[in-house]
């Protein structure tokens, strides 16, 4: 019980602060709560299937296969797969973090995980079609043409900038998490 309280204390603090805001500014406070309710609905819709898929992936796909396709030495194959998997995803970026976590556990190369993250954040296919429709193909295509090299450069730069032992520590942290 005490531990439960400790884990959720950040949430309780923000909740109380928003309650205070509501007391001082009814309009802003209720707008904040209704938007938060909307976000909860969205998360409740997106997160359960993502986590179920992750559970299935964790149980069914052996580590050796993930390593062969996306691990160290997977080369261009791993990079392309990371881009495609990220782009085929649905849901906002916060949905990608737990997936990345399972990838770490399964021995996927760290830079490929970062590429996957980049693709999920900004080259998602359903979103791209929507972007073309709303903002025009010139806008959407320019962004796509920049994003693909951008994602790769950011991922490789981050992987190169982070010391090996820090990457190992992060991977270990995720391994013990589940």
């Amino acid at each position, binding site marked *: 019980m005490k531990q439960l309280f400790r884990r959720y204390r950040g949430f309780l603090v923000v909740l109380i602060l928003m309650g205070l805001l509501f007391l001082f500014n009814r309009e802003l406070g209720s707008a904040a709560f209704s938007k938060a309710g909307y976000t909860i609905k969205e998360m409740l819709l997106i997160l359960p299937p993502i986590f179920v898929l992750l559970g299935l992936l964790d149980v069914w796909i052996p580590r050796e296969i993930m390593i062969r396709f996306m691990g160290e030495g997977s080369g261009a194959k791993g990079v392309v797969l990371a881009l495609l998997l990220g782009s085929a995803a649905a*849901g906002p970026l916060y949905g990608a973090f737990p997936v990345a976590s399972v990838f770490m556990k399964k021995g996927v190369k760290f830079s490929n995980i970062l590429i996957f993250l980049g693709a999920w954040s900004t080259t998602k296919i359903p979103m791209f079609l929507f972007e073309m429709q709303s903002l025009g193909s010139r806008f959407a295509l320019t962004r796509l043409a920049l994003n693909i090299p951008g994602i790769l450069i950011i991922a490789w730069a981050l992987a190169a900038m982070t010391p090996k032992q820090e990457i190992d520590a992060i991977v270990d942290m995720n391994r013990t998490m589940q």
Partner: protein
Amino acid sequence: MSTMVLYGVTALLLIISFVKDRKKTVQALRKAWKALEHILPEFLVVILLVGLLLALLNPQAISAVIGKDSGLWGLLISLIVGSITLIPGFVAFPTAAMLLQGGAGYMQIGAFISSLMMVGVVTIPVERKYFGLRLTVGRNLLAFLFSVIVALVIGMVMGEL
């Protein structure tokens, strides 16, 4: 639409898994729940912060500051607003289209959309739990800088620069 595909695929795989091996399927579901519960406190904080931000930064407030003639200041504000907020794409694109019609520049909209999708200040509590603080900050900083480049190129391609 993509949510429905996600559910369809998940249900299908779950059924196949269940038919092939019941025990493994139960194990998978248990893992799914544990992983979700593990990150739930951080998600709840993020949800509240997002609610607060969306209440403060409605489309009218945004369009007031990133009009076409807002120039470099508008660019900077677009980047900051995009970095902090977390708006789903199916809301963000129509909003961006509306802002364009309301006189916002393509360069500012490019900055807003790019940083919105790649930079996530409010989700840092979730991201750091998986990647550690240093890497999280590094990724967001690089994504922010990259969004500046995207905005400038879009400004050029759209004939604003």
